[in-house]
């Protein structure tokens, strides 16, 4: 009977591999030629909102990230992404715009494959539910101080919201700590590669310069 039993173990492996090939490996192969850009490459293009953040919260920014430049931006968006993950923001906010249901009119241009081919999307944060709106085109939509006030108490700026308050991103005087600033930097990064309505590729060498 041993051989018969092994059949099912082998079946498991073979069917798994077949499914993995069709649904996992083939998308990987499709994307294989698009270079996977590092966080540093992506952060080379610093959006105006990050410079504004340094002006809006000079003391806190200086303490957390120093001066606004690609290096501090890389640090900020990485930390912001980590917080986004550990607070499970991605459960209630998605990160792709679909080509249906008028989403391009609501959020901005439809998402394209090359936008996600970088280490900031490792792991990807496509999300699972939209209790709050999609965030992949969030950059520049709201000001930094709106984002900060919204993190401290969402219902203060949006009375209908059901988002939790993240008071632990703030010190006793309600001033943002590095965590709040990092999350805001991350949110202002999401979609900062959409310029004049054109979707560019994050970290594309030619698209350098400020903003």
């Amino acid at each position, binding site marked *: *009977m*041993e051989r*018969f*039993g*092994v059949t*099912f*173990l*082998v079946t*498991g*492996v073979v*069917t*798994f591999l*077949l*499914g*993995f090939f*069709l*649904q*996992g490996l*083939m*998308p*990987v192969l499709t*994307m294989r030629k698009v270079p*996977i850009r590092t966080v540093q490459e992506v952060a080379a293009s610093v959006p105006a909102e990050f410079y504004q953040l340094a002006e809006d919260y000079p003391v806190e920014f200086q303490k957390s990230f120093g001066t606004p430049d690609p290096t501090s931006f890389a640090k900020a968006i990485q930390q912001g992404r980590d*917080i986004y*993950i*550990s*607070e*499970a923001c991605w*459960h209630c906010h998605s990160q*792709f715009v*679909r*080509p*249906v*249901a*008028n989403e391009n*009119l*609501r959020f901005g241009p439809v*998402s*394209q*494959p090359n*936008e*996600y*081919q*970088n280490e*900031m*999307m*490792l*792991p*990807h944060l*496509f999300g*699972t*539910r*939209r*209790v709050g709106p999609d965030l992949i085109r969030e950059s520049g939509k709201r000001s930094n101080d709106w984002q900060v006030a919204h993190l401290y108490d969402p219902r203060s700026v*949006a009375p*209908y919201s*059901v988002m*939790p*308050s993240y008071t*632990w991103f703030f010190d006793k005087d309600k001033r943002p700590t590095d965590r709040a600033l990092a999350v805001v930097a991350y949110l202002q990064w999401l979609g900062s590669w959409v310029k004049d309505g054109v979707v560019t590729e994050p970290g594309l060498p030619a698209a350098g310069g400020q903003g």
Partner: protein
Amino acid sequence: MIATVDRRPLVNLTLVRWHLIASSIFLAISLLGGLAYAFQFNNMYPFAGIEWLSPGRVRMVHTNMAAYGFIANAFIAGMLFAIPRLTKRPILSDQLGMLIFVAWQLCMVLTIGGQLLGYGQAIEWGETPIFVDPLIVVGLVLLVVNIAAPIVTTAENGLYVTLWYFLAAFAWTGLVYFMGNYLPQFWVPGTAGAAITGLYIHDLVGLFVTPIGWGLMYFFVPLLLRKPIWSHALSLIGFWGLAFFYPMQGVHHFLFSPIPMYAQYGAVVATIAIEIVVLTVLVNFFGTLHGRSEAVRGNLAIRWFYTGMIMYGITCFQCAFQVTLTFQKVIHFSDWVVGHAHMVMFGVFGFWIFGFFVELWPRAVGRAWVHPRLLTMHYWFTVIGLILMIIDLTAAGLVQGYSWGALSHWSKSVMDSMPFWWVRSVAGLMIIAGQVFFFYALWATARRPAEGTVPAPIPAEAA
């Protein structure tokens, strides 16, 4: 076909009992987490302002404990009971079994702690912290070694269908877990990573929970009905259909995403195909019930099983539609999906687990149920609560989806969802009320003075 008597040396009832206890404890944790999270949507979150009990983190505990704490523990208990009886051989080692038990619960505790402290991973259904993942993989491998040994060495002539499912699941689970938790985390970013995560989300349900669940059904239903399964041919179709189609539908979680469209179409086709396979399995089980349908009234375990199967039928019917691009336009990212997930994980597998809890707990503790009426109450509260929740969330999903598609301001979809979210909380309270009866019955039964007899399956309408 079913092995008979002489359970003592065969089944390690102590292990079964411990896994059942752990399962019920994690069920309680998961349900309380879910309830707290639901209250966030009524702006009544009980732990507001406490960092490590933030709703986002509690939600991870809710889903992960449902999958790995509640369902996995109960399934291990079920397999520890079923496999030795089917193969007439005990598991490889009782000590190893105990070690796996302790290690698994340690993983669960580390998972809860890690997630609450902010080390959750951004993989849906794989939010277990990265440092727990290797432990879980090792635990799974040890578990397979321990309980696959009797299957591989059995002297029985011909393997029963339950064991096909178990063996395939053994191969699948470790591979799936590794793939889902590591590839998108370390090597594959963006859309390709999303394809793999989608595969993982679905494989967890399809290649771990579903085959073991069905395997246990193929074991318990004929056992309790005291008749063989209706059609061997249909169970063959069911198994091979599942094995072929289930692994290739992951991307249907991300339709209209920037994942290459051929993968999306493939996933849609495979998903619709599997619903046809599901139909054959359901026909097989209702064929088995034919002629013994009074058991649904008289035997609570059978009632749980068949309620779960009806839920399964509804789920899969719903799935065949919602997986199409047409439906996805409206319902994607809405509460419809949440309702669907609850129907599968709790309405199907949770119900089956309650079914064999009813059957196994008296054996595991060596005492007859104390208050059978409490179990009946548990059944009705849970079923009505869950159905209420599903209908509510499905409707809420349609409201949200159309609100978004109509380009109304975002706040409209939130404000219009409020009444639905209230009903959801009430439904959750109802389910939890049901579990209070259940937990009390478990407790009281275990505390009752021993009688030394293993009771027969109890009639549901007794007492």
